[in-house]
């Protein structure tokens, strides 16, 4: 689920299953507490969160948060 890159957490959200707006919204909510950055490639939205050991659980919560947001906004459902 999570990939480690140096000391950062890398979460890759497949563009076919996740909505960009919902990811951006979630980042703005989580961004107050953690250092999060968003990158894009052809197939994935790449979210980088700093400090692997400290924020591992938070990163997984972030994955659920994005899914939850999509349910609330009725995206991709």
């Amino acid at each position: 689920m999570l990939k480690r890159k140096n000391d950062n957490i890398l979460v890759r959200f497949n563009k076919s299953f996740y909505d960009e707006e919902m990811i951006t919204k979630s980042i703005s909510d989580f961004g107050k507490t953690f250092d999060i950055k968003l990158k894009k490639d052809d197939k994935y939205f790449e979210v980088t969160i700093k400090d692997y050991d400290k924020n591992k659980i938070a990163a997984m919560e972030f994955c659920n948060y994005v899914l939850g947001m999509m349910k609330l906004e009725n995206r991709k459902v």
Partner: protein
Amino acid sequence: MVVDLNKNIKINSTENSVNIEIDPAVYSLDVIYSACYVFLDRAYILVDSNNKKIQVEMVPKKGADLGEVGSEFNNELLNYAHYKMMGKKNSELRKIILQRALITNDPSVIDFSVDDFELEDKKNIKTPWNENAKKKK
């Protein structure tokens, strides 16, 4: 003969995660999302795809049995697939009931009557009682 019921489940005990592979031809994407939402409070979930199959990766929150979580997810998929199928099947009836409930004040607007439905009237309930009584005489 041993049948592997959960052959779409791959357990990764080192990462404490379970990977469920789903054929999109069997379960639609909205069914998969619905099943995921049920598990949001019990596991961390990430949806991805691989080799034309949809992969749901789950990390249980409270050290639950990985195989059990995967099997329960499979059950939930089936549950929502059935729910969706029945919803589709009953959509016309639901529409009629809702229409009837909303337009009860002006019955002339309703473009159907009970006679439109072919129901088997074994006990001859549709015929008024006085006509039934005449027939008996």
